[in-house]
């Protein structure tokens, strides 16, 4: 059976509905589904992911420092680490603003073929539908390889419950593979409009202040 990793996006400490729709798309195929979560997994996250068909919730611990945790290079390397560890053969992520900065990085790191902005995917044939030529053409693109990656257009599929029992698997990519942090050597923060009370643990309280801050990432 195919092993699929689904890169989960969160908003206000809650799994985005668009991520749940992506799970629904994958749940229609005969695959074991692993949710790759790069943010803190709370009870609500576990429940929502299991309710929509996730078999394994992979909690990828990243440091609280937003300059590391939100750094797309670090997030991509952490996700790529999990993909290798779990020996996944299919990866799905959202073609959202954040996804466009992370999924192609994962594809490049793993040297795997990728189709972005898919409106549908046949996981048996690995053929994805996506628009091309400024939206004038719908293309069917076939991916080949041991690992294939699909960026799914947000809202391409509405979420639909398909409850299963999910287990949680914790991974600490920075401890297991410290070279991941080499892609942000300075880890310095020089912020504009910085909120008093500064760094750390923001994701445990929701992303409010982060939205108002400007980050300065070293990569």
């Amino acid at each position, binding site marked *: 059976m195919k092993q699929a990793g689904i890169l989960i996006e969160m908003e206000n400490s809650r799994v985005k509905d668009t991520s749940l729709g992506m799970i629904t798309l994958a749940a229609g195929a005969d695959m074991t589904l692993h949710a790759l979560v790069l943010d803190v997994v709370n009870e609500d996250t576990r429940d929502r992911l299991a309710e929509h068909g996730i078999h394994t919730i992979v909690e990828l611990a990243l440091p609280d420092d937003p300059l590391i945790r939100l750094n797309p290079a670090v997030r991509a390397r952490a996700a790529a680490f999990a993909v290798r560890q779990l020996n996944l053969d299919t990866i799905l992520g959202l073609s959202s603003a954040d996804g*466009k*900065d992370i999924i192609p*990085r994962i594809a490049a790191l793993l040297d795997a073929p990728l189709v972005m902005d898919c409106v549908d995917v046949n996981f048996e044939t690995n053929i994805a539908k996506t628009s091309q030529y400024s939206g*004038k053409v719908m293309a*069917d693109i076939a991916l080949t390889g041991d690992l294939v990656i699909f960026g799914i257009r*947000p*809202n391409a599929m509405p979420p639909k419950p398909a409850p299963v029992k999910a287990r949680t698997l914790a991974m600490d990519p920075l401890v297991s593979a410290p070279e991941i942090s080499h*892609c942000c050597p300075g880890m310095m923060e020089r912020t504009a409009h910085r909120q008093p009370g500064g760094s750390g643990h923001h994701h445990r309280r929701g992303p409010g202040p982060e939205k108002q801050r400007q*980050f300065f990432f070293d*990569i």
Partner: protein
Amino acid sequence: MQIYVCVKHVPDSAANIHIVENVRIDDTVAFLLNPYDEHAVTEAAALKKQMPDSEIIAVCLGNADAEKTIRSAMAMGADRGLLVETDQMCDSITTARALHAAITQDGPADIILTGKESIDAEGMQTLFRVGALFDYPVVTNAASLEIKGTRALVTCELAGGRTRTFSLALPCVVGAGRGLNTPGYPTFPDVVKSRKKPVKIISMDSLNIPSGHGSAKIVALAPLVQKRQPKKIIGTPAVQAKEIIRILRHQAKVIS
């Protein structure tokens, strides 16, 4: 500073696209420099103004006709061009390998600029693959770029008007977004000068590009016909705003 700009020869976005043999388009339509790559070339020219010793090299993978796109880049400021010539349709894995090989052969690069995506394949990934092959840091959708010593400071646009600023060790790869600059139209003398600038033609076969672990191949193309029906949105401004968000989210599916 050795500035490489990866450019793509793409069909004009205003062209009528006709599908041939189910898997390719009629390539008799007008082709031009990918609009996002125009921003990259413009930024390279701006960097050269700050550092006059710099050289800008436009690199392209494409058929013989793609030389026109390299000439366009040279009219906008590139000093010379490299055309990796092939008649094959290449996926982003092969494209990145070809660009990497051509730049390695010609380089070394101090910075590689390109558009954040092409308007034909809309793959959004070649720059990341080029960066990975060189082991250079990569950012995309750049809205500002400044070179400070051995680092590049790049501000990138995110959704919702947010930005993130990155400090990248040079050499690096930067994907230009629309907010980076305003490309200028080349003057007639610039176009004339571009005809005299050198373009090196490199055959794809001579690069001995290793095959990847996987591939992406178009197996079918179909015209996407969208019937546009105007609809009046009525109500209070709040109701209208809510309806617009609903349409963008659930019908157009452009926001999450």
